[in-house]
């Protein structure tokens, strides 16, 4: 349904002394019908940029995005616009993705009017239907975003996205600003809506617990590159890349034995403006070899998954 090939994006900084940052450095992935693909990594690894590049909210430097057989990277603005209802995004901060001076009713009605999906006379009815579907009531229709809680606003955003009947949704950390019990509500709602409408989803998160629960396929990113990709269960059962291992080991299981040492890797993510040579993870890798400093590993098959590491 969605195929991404060798997507690259470089941001540059400075005027006289130009410096460049490879935010996304050759990402390829495929997402099937009704499938949820998870993208996980630490902050600054480029996962949000991937989501935005796929939707062409920012333009890529090279690579292709093929959506339902159409190469959208070369599409003209007007043609892209026609495709927009099919591909939507849920941002992490729902409060700021709603217009503060529009009532909830107006926010949800906007896409319906824009794409003329229902006749003017039926908009009110449709808005109410959408609101009730995401678990809100009629009384919320005339409220403003600041009068609702973060969880309720995320429901409104979801209703607005679903109004267009998209086939593909990028969910960019949709619950990272919410409390756990509210997070559970929103994630269950997304699951339920996916059952009902059958959209595919790129689910971006730094929370491995959430990723494990929500996705069937998974890509682990580190400094703009995928280091491991495969079925979510396979990766959680037997992580192969040292970084994936470290990430999974860092997931602190509630109620686990507290004497267990939980510090899996030393150091922090290197400066992306000045990334290490060879394998980008070698500066923190516990299994570093000589070759890692010199040569960047290619993606290879290792059992059920694909890994970019010289160990394989």
């Amino acid at each position, binding site marked *: 349904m969605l195929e991404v090939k060798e997507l690259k994006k470089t941001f540059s900084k400075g005027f006289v002394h130009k410096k460049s940052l490879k935010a996304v450095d050759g990402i390829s992935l495929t997402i099937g019908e009704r499938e949820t693909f998870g993208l996980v990594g630490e902050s600054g690894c480029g996962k949000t940029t991937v989501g935005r590049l796929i939707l062409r909210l920012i333009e890529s430097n090279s690579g292709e995005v093929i959506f339902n057989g159409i190469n959208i990277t070369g599409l003209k603005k007007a043609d892209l616009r026609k495709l927009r209802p099919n591909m939507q995004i849920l941002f992490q901060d729902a409060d700021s993705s709603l217009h503060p001076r529009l009532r909830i009713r107006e926010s949800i009605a906007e896409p319906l009017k824009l794409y003329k999906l229902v006749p003017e006379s039926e908009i009110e009815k449709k808005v109410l239907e959408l609101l009730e579907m995401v678990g809100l009531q009629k009384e919320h229709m005339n409220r403003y975003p600041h009068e609702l809680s973060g969880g309720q606003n995320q429901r409104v955003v979801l209703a607005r996205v679903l109004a267009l009947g998209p086939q593909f949704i990028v969910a960019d950390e949709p619950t990272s600003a919410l409390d756990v019990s509210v997070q559970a509500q929103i994630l269950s709602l997304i699951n339920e809506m996916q059952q009902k409408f059958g959209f595919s989803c790129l689910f971006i998160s730094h929370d491995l*617990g959430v990723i494990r629960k929500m996705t069937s396929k998974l890509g682990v990113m580190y400094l703009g590159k995928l280091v491991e990709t495969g079925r979510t269960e396979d990766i959680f059962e037997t992580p192969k890349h040292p970084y994936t291992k470290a990430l999974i080991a860092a*997931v*602190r299981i509630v109620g686990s034995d507290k004497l267990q040492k939980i510090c899996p890797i030393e150091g922090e993510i290197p400066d992306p403006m000045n990334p290490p040579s060879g394998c980008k993870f070698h500066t923190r890798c516990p299994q570093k070899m000589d070759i890692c400093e010199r040569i960047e590993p290619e993606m290879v098959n290792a059992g059920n998954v694909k890994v970019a590491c010289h160990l394989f």
Partner: protein
Amino acid sequence: MVRAVNKVSLDVFENETLGLVGESGCGKTVLALSILRLLSENTVVEGEIIYKEQDLIRLGEKEMRNIRGREIAQIFQNPLSSLNPVLTIGLQVSEPFMLHRGMKLAEAWKNAISMLRAAKIPSPTERGKEYPHQFSGGMRQRAMISMGLACSPELIIADEPTKGLDVTIQAQIIELMRELVNDRGASMLIITHDLAVASELCNRIAVMYSGEIVEISGIKDFFSSPAHPYCKSFLSSLPLNGMKPISGSSPSLIDVPEGCRFHPRCEYAYERCRTEHPEIYTLEKGRNVRCFLYA
């Protein structure tokens, strides 16, 4: 007027780490700030805060200053806004040494650098001369921890010390706090919304809901058999525990429900819960629960 914290009682014993857990807006930060009397002047704090046989609420401002940072230190959440942007990290960590230990800058600086080293900041001599914006989120948190622990306080209040950090960095910070606190034999009150953090650092856990403590239990008991219905639901709403949502949302503190504050969302609620406010009941030694099921 909003009653942010309602009749909360808890003890932190020597060499103990107590976790204070709850969702946003439940009053946990307000409770922490009230201990060191850091709330704004228009707040009314009633009750007693007994630290080593003295009541902090009735202490003069001058005596209070001697307690802050020296006896009881607070590690605030969001280090970027808690650190002074125009002073170097080294100077900010030196400050407690100068204030409480009466050291001159040169000596305080030396101590500050060794504090930064203890907090595992790489090349502390050079990094000490840098400003907060030159530090990463994890490094800033390490600097905050060094500041808090500078004068070897006996009680450390840590407010969401791992908030906003990546998982691998969170793990490093937790490991560091455990190490430093154990080495110094200090007590700690750690405030967090993250049950995993609490389960790793604490001996006991206190759970707040809507301005009240609903359960205090030993860490093992709490995770193996949470007593209060809210704690049960809270645990099973975690993604890896089944992600079962709790219906409804936390009440606004301006308009709290009558009776038990959790009753509108509680699956065990019965008539009494709707009209009468439950007291704290002792379930067994060291386990206290605010719920009629245990009356």
